């Protein structure tokens, strides 16, 4: 998946991460939003039976967007771990926030609802996966 030029305009810093490095830790505080520029990352959730992989994201994927879109002091909802060497772009959070705040309350409410739904379904999927 090619990186959209729009995304490059928002990247303020790039980082290279070695394999099996935890980029985001579930339940930790943090609101950086990243884009995967190269490589793959695994999304994992804590379950009673240990960590369960629920998704694999490739270049172009945005990660860490849930706390940003929920606009509250949310904790990270999952682990994001590099599969191989991964190049990440850190997005300009302040610019994103300013633009997001200009949206109407109704549209923000719709986006928030969808993000909450993603959070719930991801949790449900990880618990189901752990049961099997």
């Amino acid at each position, binding site marked *: 998946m090619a990186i959209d030029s729009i995304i490059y305009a928002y990247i303020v810093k790039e980082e290279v991460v070695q394999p099996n490095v935890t980029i985001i830790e579930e339940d930790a505080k943090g609101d950086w939003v990243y884009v995967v520029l190269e490589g793959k990352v695994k999304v994992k959730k804590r379950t009673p039976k240990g960590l369960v992989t629920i998704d694999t994201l490739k270049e172009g994927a945005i990660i860490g967007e849930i706390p940003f879109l929920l606009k509250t002091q949310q904790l990270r909802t999952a682990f994001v771990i590099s599969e191989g060497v991964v190049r990440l772009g850190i997005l300009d959070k302040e610019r994103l926030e300013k633009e997001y705040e200009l949206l109407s309350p109704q549209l923000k409410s719709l986006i928030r609802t*969808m993000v909450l*739904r993603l959070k719930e*379904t991801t949790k449900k999927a990880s618990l189901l*996966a752990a049961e099997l």
Partner: protein
Amino acid sequence: MTEKKMIPPVVHLSYSKGDLIIKEGDYGISIYKIFKGHVRIFKKSNNTIIPLATLVRGEVFGEMTFFNFLLEPRSASVEAIDDVELEVWHPARLTEEYKAMPAILRYITQQTLNRLLRMNRVIDELTARKRQSKEERITAEKKSNKRRYFRKNFVQECSYRSATHSSHVDLHGVIKDISPMGVGVEVIERNAMNFNHNLGNQLKISFQLPSGSSINEVAIIKSVKKSKVPGCLFLGLEFSNISKDALKQIGFFMMS
């Protein structure tokens, strides 16, 4: 007078407990905000209902179709849990705003939608696998139970009496089959002792195995059926706390 696009006004709707507000698979464009009451969101997969969420006042639903640009049918059903009042938003103005919002926010939102759709599919698949694995386990258990509790045909007279009421008189029956778990016994329905062959009654049952070993055990009536012999009943008895020796003797007989 300036020509303005007509945007449908916000309308309010009321639903009663149990009413289906959105049906999975239907096409619809409205977005709903809950003003009063609770709704349940669920999906159906192979006739199994998968509950997804319960929403309360202030929460919104119907957003998936909106972000999908109204191309996809409703991805889940929504039902009123109690009396519900909703504010219904027509998506026209919001669609315009969504299309005009910064491209990066649209990109992030579309990714969120794609992940949500993928997670919904994962839940469908995992639910189906869970159901299949449960069915396989039940079938395997049934098979293993069948082997474990295989009943051997065995015709042998027996005597029995109530295990809970004092009685010095024995009643007689004929054992028809046996397993380590219990026996099937044919008995006369009406008897001199007015003993009722009711489910749950406990009996002291005595009989002999062909080896000459005596079995004296307490058993519970688990089933009562009419026998093919007029005036007789067929009782399914299950041993309660069978002694190790009796279990061993029955085991030897089952294998012979």
